[in-house]
């Protein structure tokens, strides 16, 4: 018996087609199922990452973390979710109402559109465009518009400074993320994620061209980490100087949207890294060792995918809780004078590598 989800999906499709005559009704039900599945996964991942981060952070600081609500405190996050839903949304007097409420909505929409472009297991994916990688890069940068709107419309100096810093930081580091993805596209010869997955069946991209891909992966991880406004790059939210940065005026569910989107972006960045560098849902294969490959294939593809994501997420948390915050001039120095020249150079390197090997 196969543990893969693609069999289940095909069974549902065939069952629906057999039971219902009208083709449009079948399509409609399938659309609703796809939407509901993505929504449930999105919410579950956000909830899981919140408790995961709190626990990991506690262990890094020699604390226990949440441990009262439920076994090991795992229901703490559900309690927090209910609390944030039923909290008052404070009506502010001096802000720009339309932009103020549009901000978190745009952040969530950008994050969810990116989430829909991922591949979760063999045959399980949302939007699978022929320009998949480009689509992911494009829609993931929609969120920054929401952040800028939120900071500007709050009519609060801390929020404004936070939003401006966030804007400068995210657009700067997006360049490096973009260029390291381009290195992958050169090696894979396609922007379609399914095609990239097929090309990684025998060997992951990181092993196909170890030197340029390792540089690209390190650059991508730093850039993705900076794009989530976390860790040493958390100047937009710098608690000790800006109270909370761009979302200082938000309360209740409007803040909850920023919070959910932040944690899902953490997952999305890890997932994109796992998909393009570590083979996504492909098992670890060594060409020629058929016995070893067969053992590796016993593990279902979604387990591989989520393990790789967890690995990247853990790295991200590790960095976040280990390093002190940068100043903005150090941050821009890192991006424009170190990472950008390196990633431009890496493009040429990977092109030469592809021609030679």
């Amino acid at each position, binding site marked *: 018996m196969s543990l893969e989800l693609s069999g289940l999906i095909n069974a549902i499709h065939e069952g629906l087609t057999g039971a219902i005559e009208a083709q449009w009704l079948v399509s409609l039900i399938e659309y609703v199922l796809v939407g509901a599945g993505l929504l449930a996964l999105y919410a579950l991942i956000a909830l899981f990452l919140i408790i995961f981060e709190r626990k990991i952070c506690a262990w890094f600081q020699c604390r226990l973390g949440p441990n009262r609500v439920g076994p090991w405190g795992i229901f703490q996050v559900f309690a927090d979710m209910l609390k944030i839903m039923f909290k008052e949304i404070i009506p502010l007097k001096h802000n720009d109402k339309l932009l103020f409420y549009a901000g978190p909505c745009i952040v969530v929409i950008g994050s969810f559109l990116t989430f829909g472009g991922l591949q979760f297991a063999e045959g399980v994916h949302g939007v699978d465009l022929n320009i998949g990688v480009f689509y992911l890069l494009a829609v993931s940068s929609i969120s920054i518009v929401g952040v800028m709107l939120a900071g500007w419309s709050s009519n609060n100096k801390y929020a404004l400074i936070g939003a401006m810093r966030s804007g400068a930081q995210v657009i700067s580091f*997006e360049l490096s993320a973009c260029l390291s993805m381009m290195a992958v*596209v050169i090696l894979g010869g396609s922007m379609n994620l399914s095609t990239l997955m097929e090309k990684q069946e025998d060997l992951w991209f990181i092993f196909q061209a170890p030197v340029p891909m390792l540089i690209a992966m390190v650059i991508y991880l730093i850039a993705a980490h900076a794009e989530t406004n976390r860790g040493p790059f958390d100047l937009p939210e710098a608690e000790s100087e800006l109270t909370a940065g761009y979302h200082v005026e938000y309360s*209740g569910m409007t803040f909850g949207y920023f919070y959910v989107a932040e944690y899902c972006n953490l997952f999305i960045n890890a997932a994109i890294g796992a998909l393009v560098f570590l083979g996504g849902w492909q098992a670890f294969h060594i060409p020629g060792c058929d016995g070893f490959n067969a053992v590796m294939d016993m593990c279902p593809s979604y387990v591989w995918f989520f393990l790789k994501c967890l690995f990247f997420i853990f790295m991200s948390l590790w960095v976040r809780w280990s390093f002190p915050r940068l100043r903005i001039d150090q941050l821009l120095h890192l991006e424009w004078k170190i990472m950008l020249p390196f990633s431009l150079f890496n493009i040429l390197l990977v092109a030469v590598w592809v021609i030679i090997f």
Partner: protein
Amino acid sequence: MSPYEILVVVFLTAFVLLIGGSVIALLWAPKTKNAQKAEQYESGIPTRGTSWMQFNVGYYLIAILFLMFDVEAVLLFPWAVVMKGLGANGLLAVAFFLVVLILGLAYAWRKGALEWK
């Protein structure tokens, strides 16, 4: 199902998420009126003036530089897809393009656009 149909579904689902959360908050969350609470939250003392004012020009420079490299990325992606087929000639052509770009970055660097003042 074509990917563009799924794209529309994903887009609508994002709205379902937003509307669902907002409806719960609007129905059950308490609503109070309080003149103090409606003020901006800055440092505990009343805020002076508006925040909608002129801002450090450094951010604008960063945005302009970003624009230059982002357009470059859009131009390079199609080349990246067909790189294997083009071979050394394609690489040579793009290397010239990249050199021009790097000269642009070097110019901005030399002029001090990357320094934070």
